[in-house]
């Protein structure tokens, strides 16, 4: 799996690509946490469009980052989960963390300002 962090000071996007399981979650956790702890961005978006496999370890990763961000007053949201990621997210009851189209649009407007 690859993890790429995009974005600036106020919010970052962690783009995850590939298979997210217990083995690969460890590296993703380290990379994302390093950025959260260094920059304390108000919003961390986890982009899951490129996830080709996910099990409950992915839920652990999301909830873990949520805990870290909330520790300094930040938030975590999920963007564009792939079909397999969405299925596990739904089962876990975390749908409210998935950005809606409306939310994404208003965020883009914010950025342009």
């Amino acid at each position, binding site marked *: 799996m690859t993890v790429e962090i995009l974005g600036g000071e106020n919010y970052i996007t962690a783009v995850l690509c590939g298979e997210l399981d217990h083995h690969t979650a460890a590296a993703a956790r380290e990379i994302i946490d390093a950025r959260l702890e260094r920059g304390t961005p108000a919003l961390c978006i986890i982009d899951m469009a490129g996830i080709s496999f996910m099990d409950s370890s992915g839920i*652990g990763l999301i909830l873990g980052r949520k805990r870290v961000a909330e520790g300094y007053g930040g938030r975590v949201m999920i963007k564009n989960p792939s079909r397999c990621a969405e*299925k596990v997210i739904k089962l876990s009851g975390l749908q409210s963390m998935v950005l809606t189209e409306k939310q994404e649009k208003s965020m883009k407007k914010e950025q342009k300002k």
Partner: protein
Amino acid sequence: MKTINSLKMTFPALSRNEAVIRSCVAAFAAQVDPTIEEISDIRSAVSEAVTNSIVHGYKDGAGEIAVTLKLTEDNCLYIKISDKGCGIEDVEKAMEPLFTTAPEGERAGLGFAVMEAFTDDLKVRSAVGKGTSVTMKKKISSRYE
């Protein structure tokens, strides 16, 4: 029901084998042309059981994971994943959604819930100090009949 094919494998309980084992099971299942959705469900359920053996069963050291696959005439895939790890004290409690004994390891307590939701039957047998075995059944739709 008559068994038409079977496979037995053992793996060292290493986290890198989580991907290896679910790929092996998917390859075995491919002979009956499952849908993409079915393959995806099988891969997730297998990954949960294998991860549990590694993270919980063998939390105190190395061990082996045994995987037994069976395909029956009525297009059912039986997947048994067993370890000789620490075992589970209260299986019923362990299977409750959100129950975990390893929150510090960022476990969500959802593994059994995924196995249950993504397969057609789940049986868990465990004995403290002896190990755990999980048997899952997945009916593969016959698309060409």
